[in-house]
């Protein structure tokens, strides 16, 4: 028997294929959470009404925003989930080192983000069909240009990807030290509830503006890619010394 000399690229490929199979629950939970999102979307995101003596008009707005928001939450949680010890140990049952494990995780999360982003946008069609079936017939929908559609897909995928990167980073911190289990939610809630009072929520608003209020897609793309790269690479660096099994 000879010694085998594996290349990192080769092992990452194998690990990626393995994870697509092994982490199938991640996709199952996506289906579930998006169905929940569609259900909640039936309330509509807004409503306006008007009328005269003889005529009343009520306009309900429906959108896939809730589904997208749910998908981002799913992305964060799934990413945290795959950094947990049980999942990490699954990696180390077979051939890997920490670098290839992180790489294949990132590839998996990228795949999950693409699937999550596309399905989230496509859920509008499910909603239209359901509305037709459920008898709310008098609905209008604005036709969307192909470029807008593509930007929609792109932006949603990037948001979901950012969600996974944030989740992966938080999960890695928690693996390094359990104190982050308390610290991360503490800081977040503190910033939202308390910080909002004392600092007028400036920091939070700035972050929100930076990520969510970008009107140029190209700029948004660059910002997002930089953020995601930073988060993933720092997670990989932090976990490079982690002991397993």
């Amino acid at each position, binding site marked *: 028997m000879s010694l085998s000399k594996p290349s990192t690229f080769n092992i990452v490929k194998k690990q990626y294929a393995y994870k697509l199979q*092994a982490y199938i629950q991640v996709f199952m939970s996506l289906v579930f959470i998006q169905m929940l999102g569609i259900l909640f979307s039936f309330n509509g995101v807004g409503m306006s009404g008007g009328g005269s003596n003889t005529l009343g008009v009520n306009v309900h707005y429906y959108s896939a925003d809730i589904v997208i928001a749910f998908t981002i939450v799913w992305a964060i949680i799934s990413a945290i989930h795959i950094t947990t010890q049980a999942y990490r140990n699954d990696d180390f049952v077979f051939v890997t080192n*920490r670098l290839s494990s992180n790489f294949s995780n990132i590839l998996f999360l990228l795949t999950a983000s693409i699937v999550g982003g596309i399905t989230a946008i496509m859920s509008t069609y499910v909603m239209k069909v359901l509305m037709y079936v459920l008898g709310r017939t008098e609905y209008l929908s604005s036709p969307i240009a192909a470029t807008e559609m593509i930007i929609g897909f792109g932006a949603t995928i990037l948001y979901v990807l950012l969600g996974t990167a944030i989740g992966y980073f938080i999960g890695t911190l928690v693996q390094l030290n359990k104190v982050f289990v308390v610290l991360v939610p503490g800081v977040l809630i503190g910033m939202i509830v308390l910080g909002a009072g004392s600092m007028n929520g400036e920091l939070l608003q700035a972050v929100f503006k930076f990520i969510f209020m970008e009107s140029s897609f190209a700029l948004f793309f660059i910002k997002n890619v930089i953020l995601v790269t930073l988060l993933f690479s720092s997670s990989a660096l932090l976990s490079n010394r982690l*002991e397993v099994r």
Partner: protein
Amino acid sequence: MNVIDCRGLTKVYGGTKALNNLSFTIEENKITGLIGRNGAGKTTLLKIIAGFMRETSGEVEVFSEKPFNNLFVSANVIYINDQMNFPTALTLKELLNVAATFYENWDHELAMRLFDYFSFHPAQLYNDLSKGMKSTFNMIVGLSARCRLTMFDEPTTGMDAAVRKDFYRALLKDYLAYPRTILLSSHHLNEIEDLLEDILLLKDGKEFLHMPMADLKGWAIGAQGLTANVKEWIQDREVIHLKTIGLDRMYAVVRNDFSEYEKQKAREAGLTFSPVSSSDVCVYLTSKTKGGIDDVFI
């Protein structure tokens, strides 16, 4: 070629030293038994060799490379223990298929034959298996991977006697057909002693004995006789174990390093000699305190 080379290896866990300045080398294509009491540092040592854990100080080299976070070591080493966890979403058959893609020397036919022999069901889930079945499945993965360094940590946990026997036989057969370095840690030395070439005895994280198994068998000898005679005879000798029998008799285990003439003299003094099994020697050598459990119940 040395497969494992340890020099002054130390691992500290929350204040206590699980491994304490451990130095040894393991040569290629030998079956070595890693023996030690609970908490002697066996599992810690194996996990460091597998590259899962980092040493606190000292050096360890596997195939002349540092094992921690090393892809080359990971590809040529497999570590099997009873706390393996496989992804819950995959069936047993799928797990074997995945393992086949990772290990270059994987023998899928052997894996499937063992799989059938131990009557696993392809669609079963790993988590639904019983303890012994899990160990058996781990063993199939460990054997079929044919890694140059194969480590089994308490592989027989939960297995029944028949499966244990089958396992040892399978291990030996596959080793003869495809020689490789095997490290086997176990509490049941009497079961595996015929399998082992070398023995590495750990005590409190240190190497206590590292010798061929054949040497260990004649390493110590037991002598029994009247207390006074035994006491006189064991003066200036390395006593490994002492036990009083009844009121005036005593049993002593000592290093077997004296001449036939000395033995003859001892026999004249009324001592009877008996061989000591390797597993008893190991128990005596690694006992943490003087006396035994009897001394706890005063």
